[in-house]
């Protein structure tokens, strides 16, 4: 199966149904399909070996994604906000690819291969091309190359083949299952797996996508109402901004049936406030990795509702990423590779048709097909998966494994704190000691001693930070993942 088939089926079945809206412009499924085919022929006539996308979210994004698929070329979205120093090597690594860009000047590019993003929407672009599209694209071919945001340093090129992505879509989405009035609001960046998986799922289900080029809490809320949005997806930092912006007043988004979140760990206080403000909206937590073609576990609306209603078991599960999808197997192993029992925390391994686990340099899938996520977590008796965080982030203090997220959650519960980062700093006596960096809410203040007491009330003493510092903000990736190595460097510097 090839990604282009997903759009081809929707176009031939749904035809004039609206597929994508950006600004005042809406393309139907048939128009989107025609534009993608036209661009595919143009890319081939240019002799392109790939399609690099270096721009914001709008209707040109799906045209480029499906254009690449029709042409049988890999699609390579880059973060156009990267500095020249970081962008140039990524562009140079993809020499030969056509570059769909925001502006004509892209560092490290061959000017002949740069196409302005807005051109893709222009019917005259590629209209004269008589290049034929390949009749068969091998499901084994690389469909998408994603440079993982990587909280640990140098970006790695993760490879997703057509078979991984199509397995995810046809395994989890009912074809044309969306009602004609359904619309999804998308603000996740195009160079993130969530943005790509979202596009494929929505196009296959027949749901209109509404793109916002950049995120602003008020614009986002206005768009929910004006476009009668039924589904929206946010990363935790966006939801935190919306909650802050609403400042206790109801969200007033009557058409919003589902609000899903993922991309980074959601702070519980933000989620609890959001559940209160979005009345009638079902919440979905999606957990997945770039290397697993997006979502592998879901915590659904019923779980959120039960927790909000006070069910003690559901409240604990609100801290989980939900149940693993059908078709995905999970194993939790110790450092020596032994499979652990229910409830025991360890390293999370995944297996399934949508799991790629492959990088430009080779595959990390083991002989039995398991992918090491490098996340630490555990499974409860009813198959709910709990993720503690990256294995590399675990603090080992006096031989005890401590997940920074648990301490961060406690700190964020303090009314004067909006953000918190916990890291282990080297210590001669304990191996590592716990240090916390916190950000104050606007207009609030709190002393360090009060925070120590607050932590001690809510945590075991071995988990209480021994050092707490204040900062104006914390470093995050574009999807809101905390960059702990930068926090650590700051504390040690």
């Amino acid at each position: 199966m090839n990604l282009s088939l997903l759009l081809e089926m929707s176009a031939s079945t749904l035809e004039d149904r609206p597929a994508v809206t950006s600004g005042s412009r809406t393309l139907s499924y048939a128009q989107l399909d025609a534009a993608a085919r036209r661009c595919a022929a143009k890319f081939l006539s240019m002799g392109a070996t790939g399609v690099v996308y270096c721009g914001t979210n709008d209707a040109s994004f799906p045209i480029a994604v499906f254009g690449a698929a029709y042409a049988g070329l890999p699609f390579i979205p880059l973060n156009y906000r990267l500095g020249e120093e970081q962008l140039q090597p990524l562009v140079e690594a993809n020499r030969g690819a056509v570059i769909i860009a925001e502006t004509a000047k892209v560092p490290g590019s061959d000017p002949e291969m740069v196409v302005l993003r807005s051109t893709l929407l222009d019917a005259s672009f590629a209209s004269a091309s008589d290049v034929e599209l390949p009749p068969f694209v091998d499901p084994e071919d690389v469909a998408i190359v994603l440079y993982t945001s990587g909280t640990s340093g140098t970006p790695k090129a993760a490879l997703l083949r057509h078979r991984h992505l199509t397995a995810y879509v046809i395994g989890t989405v009912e074809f044309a299952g969306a009602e004609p009035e359904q619309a999804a609001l998308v603000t996740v960046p195009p160079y993130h797996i969530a943005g790509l998986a979202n596009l494929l799922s929505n196009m296959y289900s027949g749901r209109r996508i509404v793109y916002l080029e950049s995120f602003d809490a008020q614009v986002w809320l206005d768009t929910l109402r004006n476009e009668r949005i039924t589904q929206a997806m946010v990363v935790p930092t966006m939801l935190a901004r919306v909650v802050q912006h609403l400042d206790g007043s109801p969200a007033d988004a009557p058409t919003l049936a589902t609000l899903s979140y993922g991309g980074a760990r959601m702070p519980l206080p933000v989620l609890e406030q959001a559940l209160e403000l979005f009345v009638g909206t079902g919440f979905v937590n999606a957990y997945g990795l770039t290397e697993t073609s997006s979502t592998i576990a879901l915590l659904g609306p019923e779980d959120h509702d039960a927790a909000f209603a006070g069910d003690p078991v559901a409240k604990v599960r609100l801290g989980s990423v939900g149940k693993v999808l059908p078709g995905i197997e999970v194993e939790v192993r110790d450092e020596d590779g032994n499979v652990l029992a229910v409830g025991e925390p360890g390293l999370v391994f995944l297996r399934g048709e949508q799991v790629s686990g492959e990088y430009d340099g080779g595959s990390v899938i083991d002989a039995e097909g398991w992918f090491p996520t490098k996340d630490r977590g555990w499974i409860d008796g009813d198959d709910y998966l709990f993720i503690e965080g990256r294995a590399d982030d675990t603090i080992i203090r006096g031989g005890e494994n401590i997940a920074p997220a648990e301490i961060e959650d406690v700190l964020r519960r303090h009314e004067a704190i909006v953000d918190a980062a916990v890291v282990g700093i080297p210590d001669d006596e304990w191996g590592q000691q716990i240090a916390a960096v916190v950000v104050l809410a606007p207009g609030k203040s709190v002393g360090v001693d009060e925070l120590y007491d607050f932590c001690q009330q809510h945590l075991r003493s071995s988990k209480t930070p021994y050092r707490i510092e204040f900062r104006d903000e914390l470093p995050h990736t574009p999807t809101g993942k905390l960059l702990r190595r930068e926090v650590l460097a700051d504390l040690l510097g």
Partner: protein
Amino acid sequence: MDIKAGSRLACPECSVELVVVRPPSSAVVLTCGGVEVVDAAADRPGGGHADASGDGTLVGKRYADDDSGIEVLCAKPGPGTLAADGREVPIKGAKPLPSSD
């Protein structure tokens, strides 16, 4: 006929088009309305099925035959009904999930 993953197949008599999700593990004759399916690029005379009984084939549904292991996705619907070596091929149960993305 060589049936590999990603191959596009079509019914010579009706509008049904299929994409192979999983190739068969053993040789199998896949038919639509009793007529063997062909490569989608091959000649398709059309004309309809002499025997149009059965439920037909629905777009977006996956059809899987456990005995041979073949699984196909219907890309274009039609009145013909799929069979593998004469066995009717059932729809593989869909598992729609709450919208996560």
